[in-house]
């Protein structure tokens, strides 16, 4: 399993107003692995986007990166 925290962290830190509050952790599961993101409350809306547009785009980018390594990754905001 590759580490996707770098990719997720780069994207999210670059798009929020408080990048220092962003924490990204990889939680390994049996089949799928989760990348859990914590961030400042005021940035949550921006990362999710209208109708989940932004988080869906981030997930799609991470999925493409994971597909290359035959990994399955989920990105969750906790």
């Amino acid at each position, binding site marked *: 399993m590759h580490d996707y925290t770098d990719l997720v962290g*780069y*994207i999210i830190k670059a*798009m929020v107003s408080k990048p220092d509050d962003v924490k990204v952790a990889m939680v390994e599961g049996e089949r799928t692995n989760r990348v859990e993101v914590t961030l400042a409350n005021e940035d949550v809306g921006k990362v999710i986007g209208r109708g989940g547009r932004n988080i*869906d785009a*981030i997930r*799609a*980018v991470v999925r*493409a*990166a994971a597909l290359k390594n035959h990994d399955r990754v989920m990105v969750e905001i906790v």
Partner: protein
Amino acid sequence: MSSSNSVETTGKTVDEAVDQALEDLDEARENVEVEVLEQSPQEARVRVTLRETYAVKAREVVAELLYKMGITAQVTIKKADEPVMIDVAGDNLGLLIGWRGETLRAFQTVVNLILNEGRADRRRLVVDVEHYRNRREETVKEMALRLADRVRRSGERVMMDPMQSYERRIVHITLEKEPGIRTESQGEEPNRRVAILPDGVSASRRPAERPLPAPSPPLTRQGSGYGDRPRYGDRPRFGERPRFGEPRTDAPEGERGGEG
């Protein structure tokens, strides 16, 4: 992975040195800052630095993101003025395009999110991979023209598959000047699709100068749809088939043509 944004070159004149530098950087003159380091009648030495324009920043973000995704590709600025276009070229980039360009669209959204952070003026950046957009645009145009032709001939409307707004726009523009038909987007995202309608349907236009297509005879469906032609299942099985010259008498009525 960001390439160097500054080069030093020499030439017989300043202009020559700058030209060389622009070639090295693959940039246009308006995007760079020129600093003359040395100048003698025989030789000029310059440092040419890429201006930190939106396009340059965009290319850096795209390159960085691809690097972090583990994708090797070449990233160039295709168009430096609005809307800025970034080109990605390389091998096996189908992954980055995805089904009908879905991944590419997501990638572009992410790049735009990063670039627009903290900016009051939102600018649009277009990312293209292996000229996917051009290829797709051509496909959509061809499809639109072909379906428009069908609508004109049949007089019946055709619904296209759901498409992104950008692709629907291509359809509307392509068919704008086509006679005898009009287009309309219907439905809700993400299933919004273009309907191509025959002109006569429109209430806002006067009846077309050309005669309306003759009403086609009502469709009636009888039997199998192939008239009296026997269907595959009707055929007697091999072995039961009467030999040439034999009279067909032995087949019981109930066994033939019962199923299907």
